[in-house]
Each structure stands twice: as C-alpha cells, then as structure tokens.
C-alpha cells in the first residue's frame, strides 16, 4: 500500500498537551463558524462555486448594460466613462472572479474524489486560497463604491493608460492590488492541487489511469504557477509607478509601455488555457459517461492537453501582431499559434471518436457537452483565422475578436462549466435537476448565445472596433448590433432559467441515490453527498475507469476493501484534521493591508501585514491536531475507546 496515503499520525498525537486559547480549533460541524474555518475540500469548493456564480451574475449584468448601450447607434444609456467601466469590470470579473474560481470549485470538489483521496494535501492552505480569493474579489470591486467608480483601463490594463497621469483615481490601485491578491490565491491553490495529485493518489491510480479532468487540473495548475509570476511582476511595476513614481511605463521618462504587453500576455495567453483546459477535462468526463464507453484515445487526449499547456507559453505575442514586431517575430508567433490548433483538433476528433459506437444518453449534461463541441469548433476556426497574422491585422481589436473569444469562453468554458454543474450536482447535493428544465435552459442559452455572438463576426469584418461606447448609424453596423442585443437578452433569460432551476432543485429537487448517471470514475462510488472523509477505505485502483471496473468486479473489490479497512483500523482509524481559524485571519490581514497600501496609509498597510504574518505564524504553530474516526465496513461510525472528542 502506498505510504503517502496512510496517515502518519499515531493515536498518541491526540493526547498532546492542551494548548492555550490562541490555538482554539473550532469543532462545530454546522453554522457560520464551521463554514468560515472549514478545511474540507468539498465545502471550500462549494464556497468557491457560490462566490464564482455570484460574480458570474454580476459580470453578466455588466454585459447586459454593454449590449443595451450598443443596441442602437448614438445611444445614451451609459456615458462614455460608465461604458468603459462596464467593459473593464466585465472582463476582469468574468475571467478572474467567475470562470477561474468556478474551475477552482471543480478542482476542489471533484479532483480529490477522483483520485481516491480524503482531502487535498494542505487543507488549511486550501482555505487560505479561498479567503484570499474573496479578499481579492472585494478589493477589485471596491471601485464601485468610490466617487470615481471602477477603473476604465480595460481588463488588459495597457500601460500607460494605467499611469497616475491618466487615471489618478484609487480604483486603479485597487484593481492592481486586487489582481495581485487573486494571483496569490491562485498560486497557493495550484501548488496544493499539484502536490495532491502527485502524492495523494489512491494505490494503483497511476498517472495514466488518472481521470482526464484530474489530468487537466494538473496541467492547469502548472500553467497557473508558471504564468502568474509574469503578471505579478507587471502589476508590481505598475504599482511602483503609481505609488512611488518609478519609471517602468512612464512615457515622459522613457518608460516602455510595450513591456507591459509582453509581461501581460506571457501571463494572459496561458490564462486562456487556464480557462479552457478544465472545461476540456469536464467534457472528457461527461462524454464517456453518457456514451457508456471509455474516452477514445485517452493517452493522446492527455498528451494533447499537456501539449496545449506547453505551447500556450510560446504564443503570447499573437495578441500583439499589430505592435510592429517585425516580420520574423510575427511569422514565428503566427506558426506557433497555428501549431496549437493540432492538439486542440485532436481533442475534438477524440471526443467524436468517444461518441462513435456508444449508447448516447441525451441528458442535460450531454446536451451542454455536445453544444460545447460545436461552439468550441467555431471558436477554434476563428482562432485559426487570427493565427494568420495578416488576416489578424484586420481582425485584431475588432468585434471579430469579441466573437471569437466569446465562442471559446462562453461556448467553450462556460458551456462546459454549466455541463459540469449539472453533471456533478447529484453527487454534491444529492438531488437531480429535472431533465425538461435542464434541456430548456440549454436550448435558450444555446440560441441566445449564438444570436448574440454570431453577428459579431460580421460586425468585426465590417470594421467595428471593440471597446467603443458608441457608433454612427451609417457604417452598416445597426442590424447586427440590434440582433446581438436581443440575443444577449435571450441569453440572460436562459441563464436565469438555469440558475432558477438549480436553486429550486437545491432545496426541493428529487433525491437520487448513489451513481445516478452510471458513472465511470471513482467519485461516483461515493454516497451523495459524500461524507466529510470521502472514502471510509481508500480504494485500490485496477483500471483507468476505476469505478466502472469496480462495478464489474464487485466481489474482488469487496474483499479488498475489507482487508484494507482492517489495516486502517490497526493504524488507529481514519485521521481527520481539525478546523482552523488562521487561514481566515491571514487572508483578512491581506485584505486590510491592501486597503492601506491603496490609500498610502502605511499604518493600516503595516497592520494588515502584521495580521497576515501573525496568521501564517500561528497557523504553523497550532500543529496538525485532529481526531480519528472508526468506521465499520459500511462506513458507519463505531465507538472507539481511545477517541478524544
């Protein structure tokens, strides 16, 4: 048996001397405190999901305001500044506060279950990631409550627009520091996932038996830890320019605005794959389950995912084809970008191969997954058009690009995430969404999405630049803009149905038992919702679709489980960690510090820093206390004579 899975704690540690009140470890299993101090990956993931969906709705409302303004030429719903604020916050919110954390929610909830682990490797660090994400989200959105409103620098924040000369308002400082905090949260979470996947796999779960979603979690996590340093540096430089008058991007002192673009896109392009690879992972789980056969060409799907992740670092300048890079650089980035189409195409071929010869059950998750393939194909093709640099010279920063990246981000990422919510909802909540309402929401979203974004291809080719708060009526853009706005409203209705049904189902939906979809991966072997400890006996994996194998070899597995349970019991039962207040304390310190730094109030900034450091210090001192559970063969708790509660 793999030693890393075994608890290293012996029964002795439970009887460690009682510590002072500073090291208070909450034990409540319900109530507010239990949520604020939780270290359970499922609860943390659930909170990630709730915050992400909240910001998804915020970003969606901003999008509707944008479409309302552009519904007719020379419109006056928003002023120029308000419009610019809307698209700045729409981009920032959707990317950093909606799609990324929604991916993180799935990583948190699903990945440990898929590899047969009881939690992530560092549960408290996981909680710290969550609360730092919340702190970053608050800081980014502070602008709404300032007199000047949120920043108008666009989500890419191209220097020198972000300099104090052009935007003296503090909202830009908040934006900079908020993104910085979000980066800390993402890197901490990514490190956690990497360690978890490398070290906490159940015995027999070799790398080439990992579910594809877990593989994509791993690749995405590596992308995060490798790409975020670039934007961290860029944001530090902007912060230095703004706060201390340094000279990274200040034009009048010879600063180089182009530097920002390189740093931003060295982060920004891998970021695109940070948004889409989890989606591809989800699709690679749903299609086999609903086709009732294994993923076609698993090794090549995994390899192409890793390949996309790697190539993602070689193409950043295709966002900069118009910056005058010269022929050789343009050609190199153009070819590298085309090369990415190959592993991406491979995935689509293999998904179709998965469908081929299957028994396709057209449930809601499958509908979203098929919708994903179609929409992602269209987005991929317009992506190839951008890869051809000369064509991109016309398309760059036009509505054609808007169409392209909404096809890959909504048609791609969001469709897959919506599919994933439907797919794993019964596992997480124990209730199942009605197929009628699920499919209805799918069709309304699908139609609304296409009506919104397909006309934008025409707008872009007809010369409409993006980030424009108004346009004249004599340029041939009126009809397409009007249709797009109607589409956005349909899309809004679809999203409203989707979430309305989700909320209803959460409280009132039909209960379902274990494994409602006839699943193939380990998470479906758990009762729903899964218990806090996930697996009462760590499973042993014998095949790629581990649970499918279990279902077809029940006797063998039952015998094995009974043996392993005895071994566990001999080691003192199942160790569970205590909850901890310090992740929340440390994140609160970061929040306070960021406030102080934005306002140049060093007393507050230093106080925040001290709270942050104190939180981390005390957290490392509070020890890895916990308690042991003793479970019988069916997973029911049994009385333990040594237990200390």
């Amino acid at each position, binding site marked *: 048996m793999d030693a890393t899975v075994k608890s290293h704690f012996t029964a002795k540690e439970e009887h460690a001397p009682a510590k002072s009140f500073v090291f208070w470890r909450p034990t409540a299993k319900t109530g507010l405190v239990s949520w604020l101090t939780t270290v359970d990956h499922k609860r943390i993931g659930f909170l990630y999901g709730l915050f992400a969906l909240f910001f998804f709705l915020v970003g969606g409302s901003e999008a509707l305001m944008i479409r309302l303004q552009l519904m007719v030429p*020379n419109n006056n719903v928003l002023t*120029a500044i308000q419009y*610019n604020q809307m698209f700045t916050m729409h981009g920032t919110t959707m990317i950093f506060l909606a799609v990324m954390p929604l991916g993180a929610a799935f990583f948190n909830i699903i990945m440990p279950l898929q590899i047969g682990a009881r939690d992530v490797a560092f549960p408290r660090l996981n909680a710290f990631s969550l609360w730092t994400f919340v702190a970053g989200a608050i800081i980014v959105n502070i602008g709404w409550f300032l007199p000047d409103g949120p920043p*108008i620098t666009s989500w890419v924040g191209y220097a*020198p*627009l972000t300099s104090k000369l*052009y935007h003296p308002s503090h909202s830009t400082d908040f934006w900079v520091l908020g993104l910085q905090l979000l980066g800390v949260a993402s890197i901490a979470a990514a490190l956690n996932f990497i360690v978890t996947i490398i070290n906490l796999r159940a015995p027999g779960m070799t790398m080439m038996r990992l579910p594809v979603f877990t593989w994509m979690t791993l690749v995405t996590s590596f992308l995060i830890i490798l790409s975020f340093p670039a934007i961290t540096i860029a944001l530090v430089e902007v912060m230095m320019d703004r706060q201390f008058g340094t000279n990274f991007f200040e*034009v009048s002192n010879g600063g*180089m*605005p*182009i530097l920002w673009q390189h740093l931003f896109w060295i982060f920004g392009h891998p970021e695109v794959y940070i948004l889409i690879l989890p989606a591809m992972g989800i699709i690679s789980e749903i299609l086999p389950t609903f086709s*009732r*056969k*294994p993923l076609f*060409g*698993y090794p090549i799907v995994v390899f192409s995912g890793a390949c996309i992740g790697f190539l993602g670092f070689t193409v950043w300048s295709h966002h900069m084809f*118009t*910056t005058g890079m*010269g*022929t050789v650089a343009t*050609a190199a980035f153009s070819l590298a970008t*085309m090369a990415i189409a*190959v592993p991406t*195409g491979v995935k*689509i*071929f293999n998904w179709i*191969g998965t*469908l081929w*010869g299957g028994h396709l*059950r*057209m449930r809601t998750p499958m509908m979203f997954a098929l919708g994903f393939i179609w929409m992602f*194909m269209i987005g991929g*093709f317009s992506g*190839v*058009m951008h*890869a*051809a*640099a000369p*064509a991109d*010279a*016309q398309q*760059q*920063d*036009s509505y054609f690009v808007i169409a392209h990246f909404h096809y890959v981000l909504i048609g791609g990422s969001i469709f897959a995430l919506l599919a994933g919510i439907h797919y794993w909802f019964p596992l997480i909540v124990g209730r199942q969404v009605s197929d*009628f309402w699920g499919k209805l929401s799918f*069709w309304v979203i699908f139609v609304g999405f296409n009506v919104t974004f397909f006309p934008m291809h*025409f707008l872009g*080719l*007809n*010369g409409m*630049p993006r*980030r424009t708060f108004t346009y004249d*009526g*004599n*340029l*041939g*853009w009126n*009809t397409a803009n009007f*249709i797009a706005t*109607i589409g956005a409203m349909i899309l809004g209705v679809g999203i409203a149905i989707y979430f309305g049904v989700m909320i209803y189902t959460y409280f009132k939906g039909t209960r379902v038992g274990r494994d409602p979809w006839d699943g193939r991966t380990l998470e479906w072997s758990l009762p729903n919702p899964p218990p806090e400890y996930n697996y009462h006996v760590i499973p042993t994996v014998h095949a790629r679709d581990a649970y499918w194998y279990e279902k077809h070899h029940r006797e063998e597995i039952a015998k094995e489980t009974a043996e392993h349970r005895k071994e566990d019991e001999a080691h003192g039962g199942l160790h569970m960690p205590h909850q901890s207040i310090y992740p929340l304390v440390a994140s609160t310190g970061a929040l306070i510090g960021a406030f102080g730094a934005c306002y140049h109030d060093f007393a507050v900034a230093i106080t925040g820093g001290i709270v942050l450091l104190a939180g981390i210090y005390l957290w490392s001192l509070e020890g890895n206390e916990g308690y042991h559970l003793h479970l019988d063969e069916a997973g029911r708790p049994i009385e333990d004579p040594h237990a200390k509660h």
Partner: protein
Amino acid sequence: MRLYSLLPHFTRWGRAAVLAGATLLLTGCDLNFWRMDGHQSTIVVNGPVARSQLDVFYTTVAVTMVIFVIVGSVLAYATLKFRAKSSEDEHAEPPEQGHGNPLIELSLIGASVMALVIIAIPTLKAIWFTYDVPAEEKANAYEVNATGLQWWFRFDYPNEQINGVGPLTTSNELVIPAGRPIRINLRSNDVIHSFWVPKLAGKVDMIPNRGNFIWLQADEPGYFWGQCAEYCGESHAVMRFRVIALGPREFNEWVGRQMEPARTVKDTGDQPKAQFASYRTDWKRNEKGYSGKFDLNPLDAWRAHQEPEKHENAALIAKGKELFQAKTCFSCHVIRGHMVGGSSAYPDLTHVGARTTIAAGLLENNPEQLARWITHPNEVKPGNKMYVNGYLANNIQLTPDDVSALVAYLSSLK
C-alpha cells in the same frame, strides 16, 4: 428519426410558440449585415495591402469551412446515429468498451498539419508583403508621419517643408496620392493608439517611445473611413479620421493650397455689417453629427469643401478672427499666417474649412456642427482638452453671436 429526445418535452402548443417566435424574430429584421460592405469594411477593399490580408483571410475561411463541414457532418451523424432512442436502449448492455485507434488518431493529426500548411504558406508570404513597401516600389513611396493623441490624429508631411515653419501639418484628414505606396510613420505622445483604415490596410499600433510604421496604397482616388483601434481612454470610440486619396495632379494642387498660410477673406465693401446666424443649442449627448446625403458621394463632398462659400460675410469673419484671439483659442490651435500661437499638441486649424469633418472625423464639417462642437465639446467628445472642469479651457464664455462669428471664421479657412 425522432429528434425530440434532444429537445425538452414541450407540449404541441409550446413547440408552436417557439417556432412562431423564431420566425417573427428572423423576418422582423433587415438582414443585410452579412454583406459587410460598410465604410469600414475589411471585405470590400481598395488597396493591395488590404487585399493581401483579405486573401489570407479567405484562405483560412476556405480551409476551416472544409474541415467544419467534414467534422461537423461526422459529429452530427454520430450524435443522431448512436443516440439512445428508447429507455431500453439506455439500459441495454453497454457498448463495446473500445479505447481508441492509434492509426486513425495519427492520420487525423497528419491531416490537420497538412491543412495548416495550406494556411501557413500564404500567411508567410503576406507577412512579408504587408510589412513594408516592396523594394522595387521604395523609390516611389510617399512618406507621411501620423501621430495619435487623445483623441485625434495629427498628420505631418516631411516632404512638404514650409519655409520657417517646418513640415506641412494637418489633422484628422490624411490626404494621399492614389496609386502610389504611402509609408506612414506612426507615433504617439500619450497612450497607445492604433492606425486603422480597413479598406486600405489592417491596423498598426501607435506606441509611445516606439517607432512603428505602416504602408498602404489606394488603387483609385477615394474617400476612406479610419478609426483608432486600440482602446485609448474615455473617448476612444469617437477617435476617428479619414483618408482622402487623390490623383497626382489634384494631390499636388491640394498640397499647394495647404502650403499657403490661412486664407483671409477680403472685405469687398458691398457687405454692410456682420449678419449673425443662430444655431441649434439643444444638442443631446452623443447625438449623431452627419447628414445622410454626405455619405452618397463623400469624395465630391470633399471637393466641394475646397471651394470658398459663395456668400461669405467678411465682417462676420473678421469678427470671428478677433474672437479667436480674444477668447484665447489661438493659445492652443495654430492658424498659420493669422496669428502667432498654438502648438502641435493641438489640432492645426490653418485650413480647417477645407476638411469634411471636425472633432476627429466625428462630425460633418458644417456651420451647425461647428457651433455644436464649440459650445458642447464635452457632450460630443467627453474628456477632451477643450473642455476642462465645467466649461471651455481658460473659462471661455461665448454668446450666440460669438459662436456665429467663430463658425464663420473657421468655415472660411479653406
């Protein structure tokens, strides 16, 4: 084949309602946008650079369309063919648990690479062609400097030096010779802008502290719409410009007129007094600033703008000139030959009357729009420097008569 399993189980009335709604939506709109033949079209183009870029685009469209049809058909076929048609299907023994077919997978990879090569070759050719003026045309190329500023464009003609002044300078309307390559040096003094005339060439950015350039050529004389394509702050959306391509003779005549100092209208003596006109004052924010007939033949409209008005009121124009000085307009705007002042950081107005548009390609250049621009700068172009904290810079107050005189003066600067 029953497709209903794909759809939510609507009642018959529900399905009818969806169909009716979709039909209404589709027929209710004037669906002509797919023609993409607007003033800023990248599809209906007028120059070799834009054409080369369009050809690459068409290549990508052709290749991706073929792939889309093939892959899409297979996907659609697989979806329909292997769909579980009944609940017995769903609960039947699972299908064969195949894990893939390396031969198929590898050959598909090979096919994708081949498809990309078809795109890559013309792409590479076009990258080199569109980058700079072809070597054999270099000697014939005409050079212009374009500078982006928040939120307008300045154009300098280094070949046309005016004694004691420097190169010929104009703003927001770039006049070029047709049929000849133009090499434009792109500069910026504040934030990043981007120079984009879709019908002539794709965009190249104007980046501070970086020397970019673009080349383009207009096949025929024509009037082309351009727009800043890189988000550059509050009024980015209304930072526009025009390119006017003229035959060689007409171009030289234009240069000749532009080299002259500002025009002075002689008082012929038969006009007794300044006749003040009154202009609309109830302009809404962001209201449109052009008339429909202007679009019909913009090049002729431009030519008409080169000629002085028929009934110029010399006294009124003289009053306007006085006001231009008295109200400190001259401290920013150059009117070469009339007064000393101004700088290149603000639009040169020496021949503003000969332009078809004002406010950076946003408003049609006619007295009404001029009056609107002077009196409502912030409603036209929010955040612009003519408007600082409440009203015009230097706290300028203008009566309706002042406006009328200023409009007459600026219009006379042909």
